[in-house]
């Protein structure tokens, strides 16, 4: 038997690189229960509360009779079972290698498969376990037995039997054992601006077969409450059921009667017809209760693939309608060529390219009918929508494009006094070339442009050039900057496999997002300024007040993360004003090559770090009420009720970067120091002087103080963290200009300038001791408001440090 293990699981806290991995024993015989279908609206429960709920459920379940479970291939049993004593699960021979996976709540369970006890390295552990059973070792009936010690029970859940070589649309998929938390987070980062899912939900997805998980993660519904759940105690939850469209959402933000924390006087700017309409889109992405995947695809469609530009004649109302119509078409499950038909017939496109003026008219001077208009979209409908350049087609320039120009006639978007331009095209026939046209080697008929476009789209999507180029255009922009010829062949095959009439973008993206092509070591994706700004906002914001504020200060309080300013600073082109007009916004490559983007991000998190740190609390910004950043509701908390630095630091790192792959001693040391290196200033009466709680240290400063203090006090100096941070003699008189005649000494300057390598950190007993002490410090969210505020600010500071690292600029294995 082969055993594969997955990184685990919410039940355990991982300490930096060495996250413990648990193997679970799978029991054959299961006590049935369908359990724990928490309402999707329910806020995630804190661990203690969850345990209490489970206890009650378990008591109920224990009373049920036990039963065997028969597994079928590719079946996923998304339920929990209470297991006691001995149980068995069976499955029929499959004639192929299969992978059996399950989740156990306890490691005190023995598993045997077809009579072979799984022990030592193969022993199941708490969390998710996967076993590969080769076809050669499958009998007529295959049995998995689970044995609990006397008197003990355990929960078995998330059981699946899948082929060991899964395929989706011809792409090799990850097996469930390969599909882990890191993979889930990668999908969310690339396809959902990170999403808003809780860690618990992410682990639940990681413990599902990928093809089941991806359906929950990526869909085009207006609301996906697993991907974007409301925060615990969310005050602004209307978006869980309403305002899922861009136009509706912008109107909601602008409406003085909406129950949102933006002051009434500041709302109008977000209206569809107002100047900060693009900021409404930002909030559409960052607000919980909606669907960040839908917006990620909507952003790509309207700013890249089918780009239109507000800097041209396109109005904001037309842009919003364009966005919503495209996404409604996706939501309806239309084949992709029909979605592009919706776009091609839109007012936004007609305004963008100017063919709203195109007409087929008789020219007396030339004594014939001529096209009075331009051929801009006549070219780009083929090239930009489908990737058809006309290579090796001698008829493309003088035939297809000319004929397409005739097709795009009498598409009216007339200006109406008092109303402006409409958001839809009126298809007329008087000045339309009503006869059939030869486009892409086919006869295209139709009474008006609308009918002709509808008839052209199925031909375009099956054009040989489109079949070769369009899949790469999709994946190359969305997900992979390193599309090798080998990868292109694979994704093209997947695209073609959907048949000629129903190439569905969602199915394609789901197959790709769970494929080994995407989850390969040579996949890499630099985030554009827009992607990075929106991703970091979703990693920073924890509730909808923060999304609505978006880093602004209202009623004296700052909250949330800026997005629009970050994009502006990078000169990356506004949302809906793509840098390259119809050719799309800033590319990944441009973002990667932009030193400006790095510089602005760096300076924002250093020089202007207050904008991140300060967005932790306000006294009355929440419509007159106080607001507190909800870190305590999401950070790991131990059974003793405390939040330890050594738990929070890796949690934050994984929260942003998806895994602990790059969380080494170097990152740990800096993060611990920012989170746990604060100064504890105790007054003479023993009380904490809260005004000094915010004095977080940085590693070079802390080590400068320690070194200077040691130098002054001798080798016997007390360099414990407590002494260094609480005794004025230590922190107030060491490594300061005051103790050296008003200037920093050469030695102090060198220490403050010192770069501590990971190796130095690992080998320094002093640093290691300090790190241990800082790791054991806790965040106090309860003592009083001042202490609570500084605890929240320190977490923001830690997050700001992570946002400064190279790892936020790209996604790669």
């Amino acid at each position: 038997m082969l055993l594969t293990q997955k990184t685990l699981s919410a039940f355990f806290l991982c300490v930096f690189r060495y996250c413990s991995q648990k193997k679970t024993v799978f029991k054959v015989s299961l006590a049935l229960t369908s359990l724990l279908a928490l309402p999707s609206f329910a806020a995630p429960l804190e661990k203690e509360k969850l345990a209490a709920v489970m206890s009650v459920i378990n008591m109920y379940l224990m009373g049920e009779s036990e039963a065997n479970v028969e597994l079928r291939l590719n079946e996923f049993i998304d339920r929990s079972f209470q297991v006691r004593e001995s149980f068995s699960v069976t499955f029929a021979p499959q004639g192929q290698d299969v992978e059996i996976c399950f989740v156990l709540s306890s490691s005190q369970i023995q598993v045997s498969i077809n009579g072979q006890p799984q022990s030592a390295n193969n022993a199941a552990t708490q969390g998710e376990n996967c076993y590969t059973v080769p076809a050669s070792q499958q009998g007529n009936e295959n049995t998995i037995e689970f044995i609990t010690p006397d008197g003990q029970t355990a929960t078995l859940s998330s059981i699946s039997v899948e082929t060991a070589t899964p395929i989706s649309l011809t792409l090799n998929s990850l097996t469930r054992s390969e599909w882990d938390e890191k993979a889930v987070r990668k999908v969310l980062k690339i396809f959902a601006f990170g999403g808003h899912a809780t860690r618990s939900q992410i682990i639940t997805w990681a413990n599902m077969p990928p093809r089941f998980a991806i359906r929950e993660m990526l869909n085009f519904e207006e609301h996906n409450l697993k991907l974007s759940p409301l925060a615990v105690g969310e005050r602004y939850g209307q978006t869980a059921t309403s305002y899922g469209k861009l136009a509706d959402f912008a109107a909601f933000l602008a409406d003085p009667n909406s129950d949102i924390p933006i002051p009434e006087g500041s709302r109008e700017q977000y209206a569809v017809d107002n100047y900060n309409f693009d900021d409404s889109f930002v909030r559409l992405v960052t607000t919980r209760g909606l669907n960040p995947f839908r917006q990620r695809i909507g952003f790509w469609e309207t700013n890249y693939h089918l780009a239109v530009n507000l800097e041209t004649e396109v109005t904001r109302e037309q842009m919003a309608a364009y966005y919503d119509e495209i996404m409604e078409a996706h939501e309806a499950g239309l084949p992709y060529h029909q979605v592009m038909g919706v776009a091609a017939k839109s007012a936004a496109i007609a305004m963008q390219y100017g063919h709203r003026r195109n007409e087929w008219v008789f020219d007396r001077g030339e004594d014939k009918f001529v096209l009075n208009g331009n051929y801009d979209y006549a070219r780009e409908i083929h090239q930009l929508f489908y990737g058809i350049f006309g290579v090796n087609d001698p008829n493309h320039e003088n035939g297809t494009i000319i004929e397409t120009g005739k097709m795009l006639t009498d598409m009216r978007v007339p200006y109406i006094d008092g109303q402006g331009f409409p958001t839809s095209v009126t298809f007329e026939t008087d000045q339309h070339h009503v006869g059939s046209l030869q486009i892409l080697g086919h006869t295209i008929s139709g009474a008006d442009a609308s009918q002709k476009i509808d008839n052209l789209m199925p031909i375009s999507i099956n054009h040989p050039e489109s079949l070769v180029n369009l899949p790469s255009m999709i994946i190359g922009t969305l997900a992979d900057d390193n599309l090798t010829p080998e990868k292109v062949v694979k994704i093209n095959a997947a695209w073609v496999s959907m048949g000629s009439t129903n190439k569905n973008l969602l199915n394609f993206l789901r197959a790709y997002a769970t494929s080994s092509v995407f989850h390969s070591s040579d996949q890499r994706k630099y985030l554009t300024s827009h992607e990075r700004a929106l991703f970091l906002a979703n990693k920073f914001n924890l509730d909808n007040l923060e999304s609505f504020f978006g880093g602004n200060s209202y009623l004296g309080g700052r909250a949330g993360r800026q997005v629009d300013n970050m994009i502006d600073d990078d000169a990356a082109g506004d949302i809906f004003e793509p840098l390259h007009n119809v050719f799309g916004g800033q590319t990944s490559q441009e973002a990667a090559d932009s030193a400006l983007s790095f510089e602005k991000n760096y300076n924002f998190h250093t020089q202007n770090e207050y904008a991140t740190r300060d967005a932790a609390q306000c006294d009355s910004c929440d419509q007159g009420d106080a607001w507190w950043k909800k870190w305590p509701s999401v950070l790991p908390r131990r059974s003793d009720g405390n939040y330890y630095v050594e738990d929070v630091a890796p949690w934050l790192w994984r929260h942003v970067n998806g895994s602990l792959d790059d969380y080494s001693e170097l990152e740990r040391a800096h993060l611990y120091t920012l989170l746990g290196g604060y100064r504890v200033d105790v007054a003479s009466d023993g009380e904490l002087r809260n005004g000094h709680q915010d004095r977080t240290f940085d590693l070079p400063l802390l080590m400068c103080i320690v070194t200077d203090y040691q130098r002054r006090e001798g080798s016997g100096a007390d360099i414990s963290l407590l002494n260094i941070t609480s005794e004025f003699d230590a922190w107030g008189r060491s490594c300061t200009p005051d103790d050296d005649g008003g200037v920093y000494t050469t030695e102090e300057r060198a220490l403050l300038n010192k770069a501590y390598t990971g190796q130095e950190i690992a080998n320094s007993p002093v640093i290691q001791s300090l790190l241990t002490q800082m790791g054991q410090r806790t965040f106090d969210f309860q003592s009083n408001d001042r202490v609570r505020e500084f605890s929240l600010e320190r977490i923001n500071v830690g997050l700001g440090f992570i946002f400064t690292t190279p790892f936020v600029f790209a996604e790669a294995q």
Partner: protein
Amino acid sequence: MSINKFDRRQFLQGALCSGLLYGTGSLPSFMSTAQADPAPLNSKVVGNLFFDGGVDFRHLIVPAYDSSPDSFGNKYWKHRWRAHRVSQSDQATWQARFDNDYYPITVGGDGWNSGLTDVGGLNSGTTFGIWREAGWLIDMFQAGNVGLVFNAVGGTNRAHDLSSLMLNQGNLLSTLNQQDRSGWGGRLCRSAGGNSLSLLSSPTPFSFGPLGNAPNYDPNAIDNRELISVQNSREIGLFDFNFDDNQIYSTNQRRARTAKSYYAALRQEEIGEVYQKIMDHESKVREFGELIKARLESVPVPIYIQALMSGVNGPNGQPINPEPDSNSNNFGDPRRVLRNSYSFGRQIQNFYDVVAANPELNPRVLSMQYGGWDSHNSQRQIPGSLANDPNTTDNRGIESGFRDIFGGQFGNNPSDSNALHGGFSALWESLPNQSDRNNIVLTMAGEFGRQIRDNGDAGTDHGKGNLMLVIGDQCQGGVYGEMFPDSEVDKYDDTSLNTPDIDARTEIDPLFASVCDWVDSGSGRYVFPRTHPSYSGEAPIIERVGMFDSLMI
């Protein structure tokens, strides 16, 4: 932990920067010797301006109106009346448009100064006009400093993205799948030494260097060791902590120290290759930011360059470009000159600053870009404000861009001494030393030309051949190639041709290779491998063999 693959030695050589010594507590040794005055430019530099979108240079430089129906000068205006906003049938309006708006020059005749060249004598007696508001271009041409290269081609097809790639990479054989190929600017830097300066928010492929060392580098891969981005020369740099402050009280100084220490240490560790670009940005922005800041600290932005972007007073204390509308609250106040001030004006300032700080930056190639040329409709727009305000920044179609780039005056006898300085005019006026101008050559091209007939939307659709420009005090000014080919005349009225355009007669390789040879003798054949004598593939076309042998002096 292992040391990563970042090639420090090569970077230090290429970028003339010792800043990576950070972490040892020392500072770059030559920081203290940095000068605070504009330094004279002592090495040759190419400034490349990419006209993104496919510029219609046939709108900037046009044939003189000719009443003879079969002449080029008649066909042109007959088929361009919408793009020029003149009457379809009243030829007097064509004549007036040319007379009023174009500065006439006859090759070998009126307006043709001695010293100008007409290579091969192809254009003797041809009268053409340069748009009058392109005053700097007119003055530079008449001074013999502009090479107009006709029938040139930068991209072999009519797709923006592919043709742009071809032009920037300097390879007409490129395909869209070859995004990771070096650019001709980057290759020139590798050959000639010095750095590739991008003056944009994000570098274009033109700036990307090849893999390996000259002359045997691999043009089909990218190594950007010489690439430096200077999007805003006056603000470039990373925030740092300041020893004048007590380090314990300022959170942003603690954060700056954390980040600085972290990056310096991270450089000693192995991280994914994908992140090396980010590491590269950190070191270059930090170090070059400090160097540029030190150099420019007491170097003001010249007035005419300031005026491109914001309202200022001129040397006489009077506003440059005062608001003319007496009903405006800003009546008489100085206004910016450029329509595209944020991007292009900034690039001009960066250009000036890079020259001023050239001892630190060692520039060899400067990359610039101006977009908005995809003029499928309303190629020429006439805003209402233009009637009373010749310097309006309201949208004038592609003429706004021409004015931004070429507008102004220069030299002792400018064609319009009252014209405001446009982008390059302000730069040329502001460069303090003749040696600066002597060492600069500008190359200008779009990815493709446009069709010779306008469309029904007062614009022009994608074509192929186009005009390209080489400008500099060391350029042999004149015309290269047949300006208005006889073979085009029949195409205008040929209704069997749906999309007639300018035939391509000269590919970019020999043209820009000659510029490379001026910068670094013998480099052209390596930067443009198809010009190398040993190249075995199809040689690039050229209208007349040896046409560019004397393009640069």
